[in-house]
């Protein structure tokens, strides 16, 4: 996007003439901001303004005629304390625990898999990584539905257990197990892919050096391998935890009243409960929790980790 003066084209293939660079270039800040203009306008109207409205509504109150009313003169802060009262705080904590356990399980399942693909899978490596990308890009809803199909009361798991003589009347849906299983299953590829990328880039001579210097297997794993691939690990943890903690589909399909997550409760306030100020306060708390968590994490491990 620079503006150059018309220069005569040299047709001959003789000695290249050193040309004085006489260019009137558009300054970087102007070119950059011009290119960013559409995105800025878009994000301003469809992200910043909507968030600002939610912030405003979280300080409003509802009336009989209106799901929400906001006025500068009358800011209602109690929506925030209501959002974390004993009715809702356990659900908030439950979401964090579910997402945390699912993230941990994803590391446990994903790390050895990524390590094996990156190091030992030889010429099948591309195929194996594509096999992780396929579930990554197929519908999350449908993959959760597949588990609903398997876990339902007259589903496959119950009939399989029945055939083994272990009883076929187990309740799987609407349990902690089902929701954590769903989250783990749903987000596992998000863990494997970044881990694979950083294990593949890792210098294997570091591991050799560690053995030569007398470190054992466990010590090498925890003090050499894992720290070296930590950028991928951090990315994986963020990519699993963030969507898991606000998830809406998994608790809807595999959970029930006992296993509600915060995303469901937030949505409820805008639908059946029609309490927009409370729902807005919950939205801000959930988003704020995620943003603070991400920034603290990035600050601790360094921004290059992303």
């Amino acid at each position: 996007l620079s503006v150059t003066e018309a220069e005569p084209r040299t047709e001959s293939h003789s000695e290249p003439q050193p040309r004085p660079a006489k260019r009137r270039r558009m300054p970087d800040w102007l070119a950059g901001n011009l290119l960013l203009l559409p995105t800025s306008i878009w994000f301003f109207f469809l992200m910043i303004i909507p968030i600002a409205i939610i912030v405003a509504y979280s300080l409003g109150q509802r009336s009989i005629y209106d799901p929400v009313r906001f006025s500068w003169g009358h800011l209602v802060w109690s929506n925030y304390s209501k959002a974390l009262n004993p009715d809702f705080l356990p659900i908030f904590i439950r979401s964090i625990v579910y997402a945390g356990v699912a993230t941990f399980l994803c590391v446990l399942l994903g790390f050895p898999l990524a390590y094996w693909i990156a190091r030992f899978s030889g010429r099948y490596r591309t195929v194996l990584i594509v096999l992780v990308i396929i579930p990554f890009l197929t519908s999350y809803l449908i993959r959760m539905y597949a588990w609903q199909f398997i876990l339902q009361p007259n589903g496959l798991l119950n009939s399989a257990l029945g055939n083994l003589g272990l009883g076929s009347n187990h309740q799987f849906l609407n349990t902690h197990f089902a929701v954590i299983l769903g989250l783990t299953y749903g987000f596992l590829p998000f863990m494997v892919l970044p881990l694979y990328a950083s294990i593949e880039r890792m210098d294997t001579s570091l591991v050799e050096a560690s053995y030569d210097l007398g470190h054992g297997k466990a010590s090498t794993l925890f003090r050499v391998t894992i720290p070296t691939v930590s950028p991928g690990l951090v990315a994986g943890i963020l990519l699993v935890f963030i969507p898991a903690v606000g998830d809406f589909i998994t608790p809807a399909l595999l959970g029930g009243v006992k296993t509600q997550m915060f995303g469901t409760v937030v949505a409820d306030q805008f639908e059946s409960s029609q309490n927009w100020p409370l729902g807005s306060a919950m939205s801000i708390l959930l988003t704020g929790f995620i943003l603070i968590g991400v920034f603290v994490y990035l600050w601790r491990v360094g921004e290059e980790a992303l």
Partner: protein
Amino acid sequence: VSRKSALRPRYLIVHAILVYAFLFLPIVVLVVFSFNRARSGTDWTGFSTKWYPKLIHNPEVLAAFRNTLKVAFTATIVATIIGTLAAFALTRFKFRGRSAYSTLVFISLVMPEVVMGISLLVLFQRIAHIRAGLETVILAHITFCIAFVVIVVRARLSRFDNSLIEAANDLGATPVQAFFRIVLPLAAPGIIAGALLAFTISLDDVVITYFTSGPGSTTLPLYIFGELHFGVSPSINALSTFVLLFSLILLTIGGLYSLRSARRGTGAIDATTLG
């Protein structure tokens, strides 16, 4: 030096097989049972393809499929264009406020879907007074697709060799020529990858569509989500199989394309520039 790792290949292979089974068994089960004759339950009563023709004759499914395609195509095109421009700005120019833009992209990525959906619902309903319909769904989809395009295209452009542009300038190309003949062909695989990712994500979105759609703008995932209130059924299995197949075809096209452009490597320049 013998290489003895705590992660020994022998155990790792077993682990890998189990994880792959975990990843694919549920999908396989879903597909297999879309060919089950029984109307309900998961008892296998015989092979049948009868659920598939029924889908084609269901006007609701057809309308939802049309809506899904309209939304995904429009959202992908708009998001790819403005996201690519942003990615160019962020990689090729140095200016103040760049990190602020990156932060915006980042926030749009980490914002919980529920919150984004609700905030857009509130915007459309209370502030802009746009009736919920296909237009609102498209606006919402563009919003969350932009970030994915920016990230993918930026990753591609950051490996871009600036000396190629300087070479083009030295050889007498105008900046516009250099852009269309050098920059764009080299960035094309990234742009197409970004577009495919945006398309796939738009195609599969449930949560944000759920909050921004109105009567007549139901998409396929939303239709499935709604049907699930009535419990599992073989026709939902069949519809899911169809959606999976559709994504798989897209993925294959994307994969073949990236394989081809990887093989051609920088040869892409020779073929397309300064002819």
